[in-house]
């Protein structure tokens, strides 16, 4: 088990190396650099050259890469070219927000999706099933940014409500934090819910067809036992996959929601970074997100082996 974790962590290295190379060189290919975006229309060739020198952008690309990756390996992600702030603490700070948002969204989606999915699966082809399927598909079909925009407007116009401005961390002020995060989590959660609902339904259907369910019934089990102790637990495994995937996707996929709700999350950091050609920030964040993504995959895999004794990692 530990050997397995170790191996997986080891396998992280080539992936992260690949990510670092791809993002590093992609950024250099993008037209424009940080000097240009800082100076804007005030740019003069001298000022530009000076700034570029300051950021080391005048060095050969491979040297730039080596010095960056060398820093990263020693835990030094460098400083933002734009603001001069250290990159890593900023990433961690923002990750806390994005992660919280993702987690809430996931929880909201489970609360909505799993019970409905179970009901739909159990009553396959009934009216309930039909409506649940339609609703879940609708959930998937409505772009979350459209939902967010409409929600913000409707709440402000009809209920005079808007979430508090200025983000505060959960540990600073939990209540305000929850108030701030509720709407965005809700929007993300509903759009996640559709897929989870679908997966719940189909894996419940799949499990109910299995032989062992028949065995349990043959033993004289009540339906409640059949469903909750056996069917659901088995169905959780594929559901877990999709949840894991969604959490991974959300970690970087909250960009739009963060922007709409003015949340200083990781997505914002990258987006702003790209727009401002703040290479160090983008490189660092993307590498970090990739790291978290791979780790989440690992955790999901480990959860599998926890849920499913057949899966053992050696």
């Amino acid at each position, binding site marked *: 088990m530990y050997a397995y974790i170790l191996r997986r962590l080891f396998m992280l290295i080539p992936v992260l190396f690949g990510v670092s190379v791809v993002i590093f060189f992609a950024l250099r290919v993008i037209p424009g650099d940080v000097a240009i975006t800082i100076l804007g229309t005030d740019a003069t060739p001298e000022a530009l050259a000076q700034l570029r020198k300051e950021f080391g952008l005048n060095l050969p690309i491979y040297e730039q890469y080596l010095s960056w990756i060398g820093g990263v390996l020693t835990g030094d992600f460098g400083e933002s070219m734009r603001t001069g702030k250290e990159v890593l603490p900023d990433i961690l700070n923002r990750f806390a927000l994005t992660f919280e948002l993702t987690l809430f969204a996931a929880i909201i989606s489970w609360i909505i999706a799993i019970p409905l999915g179970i009901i739909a699966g159990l009553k396959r082809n009934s009216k309930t099933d039909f409506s649940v399927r339609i609703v879940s598909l609708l959930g998937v079909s409505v772009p979350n940014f459209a939902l967010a925009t409409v929600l913000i407007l409707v709440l402000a116009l009809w209920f005079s409500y808007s979430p508090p*401005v200025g*983000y505060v961390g959960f540990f600073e002020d939990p209540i305000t934090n929850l108030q701030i995060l509720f709407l965005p989590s809700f929007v993300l959660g509903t759009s996640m819910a559709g897929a989870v609902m679908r997966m719940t339904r189909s894996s419940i259907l799949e499990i109910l067809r299995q032989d062992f369910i028949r065995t349990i019934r043959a033993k004289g089990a009540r339906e409640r036992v059949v469903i909750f102790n056996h069917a659901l637990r088995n169905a959780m495994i594929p559901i877990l996959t999709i949840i894991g995937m969604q959490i991974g996707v959300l970690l970087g996929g909250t960009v739009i929601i963060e922007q709409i709700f003015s949340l200083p999350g990781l997505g914002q950091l990258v987006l702003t970074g790209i727009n401002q050609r703040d290479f160090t920030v983008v490189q660092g964040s993307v590498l970090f997100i990739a790291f978290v993504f791979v780790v989440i995959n690992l955790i999901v895999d480990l959860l599998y082996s926890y849920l499913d004794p057949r899966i053992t990692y050696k």
Partner: protein
Amino acid sequence: SNDEGNNADAESDGDSSVEQVLKIANDQEPAGLDPHKTPAHSSVRIYSQVYSGLVQFDENMEVQGDLAKDWEQPDESTYIFNLREGVTFHNGNEMTAEDVKYSFERIMAEETASHIASYFSNVESIEVLGDYQVQFNLKSADATFLSNLTNASAAVVDQTVVEENEDLQQVAVGTGPFKFVEWVPDNKVVLEKNEDYYNEDLPKLSKVEYYTMKDESARLSAIRTGEVDLTTLTAKSSSLLENQDNLTVKDYQSLEYSYVGFNVDVEPLNDAKVRQALSLATNRESIADIVWNGDAVVSGPVAPSMGDWSIDVKEHELYSNNLDKAKQLLEEAGYADGFDITITTASTYADMVDTAQILKQQWAEIGVNADIEQVEWGAYIDTWLNTSADVLIGRNGSGTDPDRALSYFFHTEGSANVWNYSNTNFDELVEKGKVTTDKEKRKEIYTEAQELLLEDSPNLFLVSPMKYVAVSNSVEGFTPYPHDGEDILEVTKK
């Protein structure tokens, strides 16, 4: 609004029962706080509250003292400033002539890469005459010098702070009305009252919080529900708030204008007739109507809010939207059937994109088929800088002095003349304008220069938009000016 209490200053000039905390929503995150290095408006609005310069504009755009009590001019190219005594930086250090010298030398030093270095390229040397007296020696007479000094970036900084922090992007220690408290990236910047501000009555607020809210609908909703007290708006949303009774929308004419830039080296744009034809094909009112909700004025190279400096372009022939004339000019230039062209614009700014779309439609009427290519901001600046687009849509700030608006952008050697435009007559005119200190004469020169520029049309100057600020009714004393749209010095909350 619920907010953590402010202990620094309970009793204030405003209604003492109300916390004097102003919450402002901005569309952009500050790019950094170093006044010498950061031209972005999102930064200026913050560091201009923290730093002061030697002089400043009053509401009529007349230069008046700030850190300098007054100044004298022994000759055309020498300025002596007498500083206020007893002014301290927010860290308690006294501000002296040495600091002024240091600050401007920092601006002028090449390694600072300051965006306003060119403003002071005419400065020969700076001499400290006494603790409170400093002398600037210019290479030649310079009519722009004083107004350049009003620039928020021409701020006086504390040398020790610079040395401690290497640069000033993360810290802000000035002599201005507000002290910098914290900057939480992509979230907020907090300032608090400088109790030791040289003007004892000011500022009236005890605290200012700038929130970054990139999404306009979020800002709208926040100002509506009173979560924030003040926010900038686009023309489009301003009308949405007209009937809102808990707030007022204030507008002011900006110092900016939108333009179409041509690479005058490439065919067919190297032919002035073609450019004139395009000018004639352009219906600027329509752009003002659609893009700016009707609240923009037709502009030449010097924005109309520069008052006397700008010429009245409304009646100019090239602004007459005369399609027949346009077609005729095209024919003369040998493009009777029109041509194909690509308009490049920044996707970051909706108004530019909208403008491009309208132009595409308008120009089509004289047979010019335009494709629109949008690039995002970094690439846009790159394109601009390298003149890698034939037609570029943009917005310029025409500065506070006509020299900036004309010489900087269109002089053959002008730093921002990316258009490959070169006209010796024009060059001579703006060179002369810069050293002419007599206002009337200067005005004549610049009028001529503007006429010339319109005729050559290296750029098509379109419209100068209004800017809008939505202010909650609990805010008093807020008046935006073209040169300072977010002056909060006198603001109180009730």
